[in-house]
C-alpha cells in the first residue's frame, strides 16, 4: 500500500495529465454517450440561468417597444375618433340643413362664419361673403333653426352680421297662434324679450314667435323664439314676455343669407 502511494505521489502529475487525455479521448470518441450527458449537465448548470436572463431581458425590451407602439396607436386612434366625432356632428348638422327651404321670393346664399364678436354671448359675426356675392346691408341671415340677424357692414369678400343677441337689434314680431304683434329685443341682463305686447293680448308659454315682416328689414314668418314666461303686471299697458331664442348663438357655423330674387 505504501509503495502504491509513493508511486502515485511521484507520478501524480503524469497521472493527472493521462486522466485529462483519457477523458478527452472518451469525449472525442463519443463513448458511453458521455458528450450528451456532460453537455446537458453543463448547459443546465451554467447556461440555463443566463438563457433565462437573456430571454427575459429580450422579452421585456420587446414588451417596451410593443407598449410604445400601442401607446402611439392609441393616440392615433383617439385623434381619428375625435375627427370622426366631429364629422358625425357636421353630418347631422348638414342633414338638418338639407331640410331647410328658402322663403319664396328669396335665394339662399350659404356662408361660413369666420369670426364671432361679443362678450360672453356673441353679438356679431363675420361671414365669408361680400358684395362680390351680391350681399348688401340689411339682408337677413338665417340658419336651419331660425332668424340669426342681419347684415350691417359689407366688404368685397366679407360681411358683418348683427345677431339678434345685440341689444341694439330689434325685430318686429308676432305670435304665431294669435297673430298679435310685439318687438323682440335682447337684454344683456334679461335675455330675449317680446316688448310692446299688450296686457290684454293672447299669449301663452310655448307659443312660437315669428318675424312679422313689418319694418322692412326681416321677411315675415321666420322663427325667432318660443315664449318661456309671461307676466301681466297690473296698471301696466304691456306684458313682460320672456323668450327662448330659436337659434343657439353659441354654435353658429353655417349661415344663409336671404337675397331677394330681384338682385
Amino acid at each position: 500500500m505504501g509503495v502504491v502511494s509513493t508511486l502515485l505521489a511521484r507520478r501524480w502529475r503524469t497521472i493527472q495529465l493521462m486522466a485529462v487525455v483519457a477523458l478527452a479521448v472518451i469525449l472525442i470518441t463519443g463513448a458511453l454517450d458521455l458528450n450528451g450527458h456532460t453537455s446537458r449537465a453543463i448547459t443546465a448548470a451554467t447556461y440555463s440561468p443566463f438563457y433565462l436572463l437573456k430571454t427575459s431581458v429580450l422579452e421585456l425590451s420587446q414588451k417596451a417597444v410593443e407598449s410604445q407602439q400601442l401607446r402611439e396607436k392609441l393616440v392615433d386612434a383617439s385623434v381619428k375618433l375625435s375627427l370622426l366625432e366631429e364629422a358625425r356632428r357636421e353630418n347631422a348638422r348638414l342633414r338638418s340643413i338639407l331640410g331647410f327651404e328658402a322663403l319664396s321670393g328669396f335665394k339662399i346664399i350659404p356662408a361660413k362664419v369666420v369670426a364671432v364678436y361679443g362678450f360672453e354671448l356673441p353679438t356679431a359675426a363675420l361671414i365669408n361673403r361680400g358684395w362680390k356675392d351680391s350681399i348688401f346691408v340689411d339682408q337677413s341671415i338665417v340658419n336651419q333653426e331660425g332668424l340669426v340677424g342681419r347684415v350691417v357692414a359689407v366688404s368685397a369678400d366679407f360681411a358683418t352680421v348683427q345677431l339678434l343677441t345685440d341689444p341694439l337689434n330689434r325685430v318686429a314680431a308676432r305670435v304665431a297662434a294669435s297673430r298679435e304683434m310685439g318687438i323682440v329685443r335682447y337684454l344683456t341682463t334679461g335675455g330675449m324679450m317680446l316688448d310692446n305686447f299688450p296686457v290684454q293680448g293672447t299669449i301663452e308659454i310655448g307659443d312660437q314667435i315669428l318675424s312679422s315682416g313689418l319694418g322692412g328689414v326681416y321677411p315675415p314668418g321666420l322663427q325667432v323664439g318660443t315664449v318661456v314666461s309671461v307676466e301681466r303686471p297690473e296698471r301696466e299697458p304691456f306684458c313682460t314676455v320672456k323668450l327662448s331664442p330659436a337659434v343657439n348663438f353659441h354654435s353658429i357655423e353655417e349661415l344663409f343669407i336671404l337675397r331677394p330674387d330681384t338682385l
Partner: protein
Amino acid sequence: MIRIIPFVLYFLLLAMHQVIWKDITGIFGAAINLAAMMVILVAIYRTEMTAVWFGFVAGLVAAAGIPGVMGWQALTLAGIGLAAFHMRERLNLDSLNAKLLLVLGGVLVHNLLTLIIVRTDAFWYRLAVNAVTGAVYTTLVAWLFFLVKEKRITVRKIRSIF
C-alpha cells in the same frame, strides 16, 4: 473546497459570456475568445495542473452547446493551459508585452485549432476574418485586464484625469 469557488465563478462568467456577451461584443465577426484568454491567465498566475484542469473544464463549458466538439475543445484548451504554463516558466513574463504576446499566440492557436476541429469550409476567409482579428481583439481585452491587475489603471488615476 473554498479554493474551487473562484473557478466556479470563472466558469459561470464564461457561460455568461457565451450566452449573453459574445454576440453583443462581436465586431465584424471578430469575437472575444474568453475561454482561451482565461486559461492562459490561469496558467500565468496559477500552477501547472490548475491550468490543465481549468483548460479541460473551460473547454467543456465553452463547447457545451456543441457536444460533438466538446472533447476536442477540452483537450485543446488543456494543452494550451499546459503550454502557456511552460512558456511562463521559461520566459521572463514580468514584461507586459511578453504576457500579451503569450495571450495573442495562445488565442490564435486556439482559434486556428477550432477552425480545424469544426472543419469549416472557407477556411482562409474564416482564419482572416474570425481567427486573427478575434485573437487581436482578445489580446486588447487582456491588455486592459493586465493594466488593471498590475494597477497601471486605478480608479484614482482615472479620477485624476477629470
